[in-house]
């Protein structure tokens, strides 16, 4: 507030460092923290602007927790602001992750460390199962039971039985969704 002419690089860095460090549970869980910093603490954006930007970020693929800081950083302090915001969010935990996994794989041959590695697999299985249900429920609500199931089965068969790259299938779906004239809300089960 005291120096309005100067680009708030340090503020940007600390704001997004905090969102990165307290943002447990992946990108989507970090949105309220970003809002806290950007709207409430620093008043860089109004509530309406934030909601609009979030809506636009959700129209695009890719992680939400880097699109928001990157865009907000750019809007406030240009290219440098964009870089600072993204680095503050992602870098600390990338370094931490690499360090921890380096220690882990160094001692992988020690029996009890090996056991630790095996014990986390069922936990990750449960988490992935939880995500599966999450995406399935959202899909069922938007497209209905029949269409969701048909699309899942056809896509699953094409990816895992025929061996088509998932990118090709999703790419075709995205293009069809974008180009096909919207008529009824629910139709078109397969690419």
């Amino acid at each position: 507030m005291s120096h309005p002419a100067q680009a708030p690089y340090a503020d940007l860095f600390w704001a997004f460092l905090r969102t990165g460090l307290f943002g447990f549970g992946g990108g989507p869980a970090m949105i309220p923290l970003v809002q806290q910093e950007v709207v409430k603490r620093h008043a860089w954006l109004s509530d309406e602007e934030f909601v609009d930007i979030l809506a636009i970020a959700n129209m695009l693929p890719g992680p939400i927790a880097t699109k928001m800081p990157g865009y907000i950083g750019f809007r406030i302090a240009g290219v440098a602001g964009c870089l600072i915001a993204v680095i503050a969010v992602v870098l600390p935990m990338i370094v931490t992750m690499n360090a921890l996994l380096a220690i882990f794989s160094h001692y992988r041959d020690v029996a009890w460390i090996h056991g630790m590695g095996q014990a986390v697999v069922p936990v990750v299985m449960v988490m992935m199962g939880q995500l599966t249900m999450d995406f399935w429920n959202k899909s069922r609500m938007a497209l209905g039971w029949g269409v969701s199931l048909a699309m899942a089965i056809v896509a699953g068969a094409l990816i895992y039985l025929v061996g088509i790259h998932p990118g090709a299938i999703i790419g075709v779906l995205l293009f069809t969704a974008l180009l096909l004239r919207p008529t009824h809300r629910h139709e078109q089960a397969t690419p």
Partner: protein
Amino acid sequence: MIYFELFLAFFIPNIIGYGGGPAIIPLIEAEVVGRYGWMSAQEFAETLALGNALPSPIATKMAGYVGYDVAGIAGALIAVLATVLPSLLLMLGALGLLYRHRHSPRVKRMSQWVRPVIAVMMAWLTWSFFSEGLVGAGLLHTLLIGAASAIALLRFRLHPAFVILAALVYGGLFLG
């Protein structure tokens, strides 16, 4: 060309993965474990476990780790840029266009149509973690740890970091 492969392995999941970081995980697995074989399913599970226990976005943590593991600091940089840059550039470059179409049924359809495909890939990945658990921890421990963490995560809404930590302790004591 390892750098180009790394770029593609993270560019493709992030340019088609609607639904934020979690949606990208099965797509990254398809590249990193399935296509290029940079990691085993076991290593991918371990990386994902640690990634879920630490804060900050999951997609960039995975990119930063796999990239570094495969090709050092340059590899990490390329994988992270391939993750962050495409959608960020689209957002910066086409904000006006996107803003005008934010209520368009076509755009809404895009993320809706991708979801069943992501869901089936997630289901497949869940299954592959199960069979990995059978090989490593064995049926009994897999069911035991799986049931305990399901109760902790779903019923008591315990933080994933604590559940991972508890599993590490259990594994160190009983699976060593």
